[in-house]
C-alpha cells in the first residue's frame, strides 16, 4: 500500500463522517475495488473499523456496512513550553482529551533541552497509559520555523536560532521515535480551533501570555481554513496603536498595570480597551468570522464584546452585517498545548501519501500506523 488513495479516504471519513464503501467510492470518484483495497489495509492497521450497517437500499439486498475512523486510537501529543513550565496533553482524533500532565521547566535557558525533557515526560506517561501518540506538537513563544524545526527568535526565552529535536524517543522502551513538530504558541492556539475538523475558515486568535512579570499578546491567523505563518514565519506580531513598534513595549499601558490582568477588573478593562483599539484595523482588513481569546485573555471575553459593541466604528463593517463573534478557546487552560496536538492532526490529514507529509521529514501516515500498532 503506497498510493495516494489512502489519505483521500481518511480525509473523507474525517470530514464527512462514517459511510459505506460504496459511498466512499462515489464521493472520491474511485473504483470500488480500489476503495475496498485501501479500506482493508486501514482496517488491518487498526485505524478504521466497520461500525454497523445502514438502512437497506430501495432495491433491498444486503445492508451496506458503515466504515468509521477509530478516533480513540489516533492520538497526538501537544506540549506548551514557557520559561517557567511545560503543560502537555494527549488528544484523540475526536478531540477528546485523554491525558494531561505538566511540570516545571528545568532548562529555562536551553529550549532544546526543555522541549526534549517535556516530550520525554509526556511520552513516559503516554506509554504507561497505553496512549502512545503518533507525533507531538510543541508550542513555543517566539518566531518559529516548523519546516526546519527551528526556534528563530524568542524574547520570552531570550534565545535565537535554536534547533529543536525533530523526533523524540518512545520513552526508552525500544519503541520507534515519534516526530516532533514545533510552531509559535499563538499559532497553536489557532490550530486548536480547527481540530477536530471544525469547518472554520477565517478566525483571529488573540493569546495573552505572561512571562515572569511581563504581559504580552500574540496573534494567530486562520485564513482559508489553515493557519497562516507569513513570510519568514513572522506573521502574528501584535503591537498597540499607542506605541511605536520595534524593541519597546507592546502596550501604552504600563507593565505595573498589565501585571494585574486578569484579576483586577479595572486593569482588564483598560487592557481590552487598548487591545480592541489596536485590533480594529486588523478585524476590518481580515474579516474573520470569529475572534478567539486564549491564555490570560480567556477571562476578558465580556469586556472585549462590550468594547466591540460600544465603540462606534470599531466593528468596521457595514452596520447591516453581523458583528464578529467573540469566543474563548474551547480548550480552556489547555488552549496552547491542545492546539499543538490539533496542529499535528491537521498535518497528518494534510499528507498526500502514506510516506509523504507537508514538511520534509515530518509527520506521515506511516507514523500513525506505527503508533496504533504499538498500542
Amino acid at each position: 500500500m503506497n498510493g495516494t488513495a489512502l489519505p483521500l479516504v481518511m480525509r473523507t471519513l474525517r470530514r464527512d463522517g462514517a459511510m459505506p464503501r460504496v459511498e466512499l467510492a462515489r464521493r472520491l470518484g474511485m473504483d470500488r475495488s480500489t476503495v475496498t483495497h485501501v479500506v482493508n489495509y486501514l482496517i488491518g492497521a487498526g485505524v478504521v473499523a466497520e461500525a454497523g450497517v445502514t438502512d437497506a437500499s430501495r432495491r433491498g439486498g444486503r445492508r451496506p456496512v458503515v466504515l468509521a475512523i477509530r478516533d480513540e486510537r489516533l492520538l497526538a501529543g501537544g506540549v506548551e513550553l514557557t520559561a517557567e513550565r511545560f503543560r502537555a496533553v494527549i488528544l484523540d482524533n475526536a478531540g477528546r482529551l485523554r491525558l494531561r500532565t505538566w511540570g516545571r521547566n528545568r532548562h529555562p535557558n536551553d529550549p532544546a533541552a526543555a522541549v526534549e525533557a517535556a516530550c520525554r515526560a509526556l511520552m513516559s506517561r503516554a506509554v504507561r497509559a497505553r496512549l502512545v501518540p503518533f507525533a507531538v506538537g510543541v508550542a513555543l513563544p517566539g518566531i518559529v520555523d516548523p519546516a526546519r524545526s527551528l526556534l528563530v527568535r524568542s524574547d520570552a526565552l531570550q534565545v535565537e536560532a535554536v534547533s529543536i529535536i525533530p523526533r523524540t524517543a518512545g520513552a526508552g522502551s525500544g519503541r520507534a521515535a515519534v516526530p516532533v513538530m514545533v510552531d509559535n504558541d499563538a499559532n497553536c492556539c489557532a490550530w486548536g480551533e480547527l481540530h477536530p475538523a471544525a469547518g472554520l475558515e477565517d478566525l483571529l486568535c488573540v493569546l495573552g501570555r505572561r512571562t515572569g512579570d511581563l504581559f504580552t499578546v500574540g496573534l494567530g491567523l486562520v485564513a482559508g481554513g489553515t493557519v497562516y505563518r507569513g513570510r519568514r514565519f513572522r506573521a502574528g506580531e501584535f503591537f498597540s496603536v499607542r506605541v511605536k513598534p520595534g524593541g519597546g513595549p507592546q502596550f501604552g499601558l504600563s507593565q505595573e498595570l498589565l501585571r494585574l490582568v486578569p484579576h483586577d477588573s479595572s486593569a482588564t478593562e483598560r487592557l481590552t480597551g487598548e487591545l480592541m483599539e489596536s485590533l480594529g484595523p486588523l478585524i476590518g482588513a481580515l474579516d474573520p468570522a470569529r475572534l478567539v481569546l486564549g491564555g490570560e485573555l480567556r477571562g476578558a471575553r465580556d469586556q472585549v464584546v462590550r468594547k466591540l459593541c460600544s465603540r462606534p466604528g470599531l466593528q468596521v463593517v457595514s452596520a447591516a452585517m453581523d458583528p464578529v463573534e467573540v469566543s474563548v478557546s474551547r480548550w480552556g487552560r489547555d488552549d496552547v498545548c491542545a492546539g499543538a496536538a490539533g496542529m499535528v492532526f491537521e498535518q497528518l490529514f494534510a499528507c498526500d501519501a502514506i510516506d509523504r507529509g507537508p514538511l520534509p521529514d515530518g509527520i506521515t501516515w506511516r507514523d500513525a500506523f506505527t503508533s496504533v500498532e504499538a498500542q
Partner: protein
Amino acid sequence: MKPGRTIIGLDLGGSSIKAGLFPVENSAPTRTLILATPAHEGCESLMDALIAAVGALCPEGLSDVAAIGIGTPGLVDDNGLVHGPAVNLSAWQGTSLSASVSERLGVPCVAGNDGSFAALAEARDRGVRELLFVSWGTGIGGGIVCDGRLVTGNRGMAGEIGHVCVDPSGPLCGCGQRGCLERFTGAPELVAAYRARGGTAVPEGADGALFPELAARHQSGDPIAEAVMEAAAGMIARVVGATMSILAPEVVVIGGGVPEAIPQLPDLVARALTQCSFPYLLENCRVESARLGNRAGMAGAAEAARNLSERRS
C-alpha cells in the same frame, strides 16, 4: 470532453467593463475590449452587458473557454454572492454572480472583489506569494494574498481597508460607519482637505473630478498639496502597518488612480511605515507601485478563472 484552452477575465467597473481573452498557460491576453457599464439600469442590464462582453470576445463560441473570472466592486463571498454595499453598482447586491453567469453561458465561473483580484494579478506578475495590495482612488480598496492564495475573509470583506476605522468620531461613511480610512484619503476627500487647508482656489465642481488638478499642484511643489498628501500617506500607512504586523507580506503594492497621478506616494507611504511598523518587517518587505495599472482587475479575474480551471481538471 476536451478541456478548454482559453480563459476570460472580466473587470466590471462603475463606468466600464474591461474584458480579456487569455491562454490558459500564460497571463498575456490575446484579445481585449472595453464596453460601457450600464451602471444605473438594474441587474438584468448589467448581466446582459457581461454576456455581451463575453460574446464580443469570443464570436466563434465558448467551446474552447475553460473558465470565466469576474471582478466587481462590493463584497463578494467565496460562493460568488455579492453582499452590500457596492456603492457604484448597487444592483448587484444579493446576486449570485458566478452562478448566474455560469448558468447563462454554460461555462464555470468565479466572481470576486475587484481589489482582491487586482492583488492576485500583482502577486502573479511579481512571482510572490505574500502580498498586500492597496487600491487608492475615489475609494480605497485592496486585497490580500497569503501563501499564494487570495484571502477573502468571512464575508468577502478581507482587504477592504478603506472601511477600517481610523477615527471613531470622524465623518459618516457610505458603509454606515464613522471615520473610515476612505473618508480621509479618497480622491474627493483629498481635494476637500486641500480646500479646507486654504489651498489655492481650485475650480468649482465635484471634488473627485478635481483630483487631477490637486495632483498637478502637488507635482509642481504646492506646499499645501504636499502636506495633504503626506497626511494621507500617513493614514494609509497606519492601517497598512497594522495589517503588515499580522501578515508579514513580502510586498505592499500601492495602486489606483491617486498614486498613478502622484508616483511618489508609495515612497511617502514607505517612509510613514517606519513610524508604525516593526523594523524587521520593513527590512523584509518592499513597498512598490502597481505594475498592471487599470489592467490589474481583468488580469486578476483571469488568474482566478485559471485557478478554478486547474481545480476542476
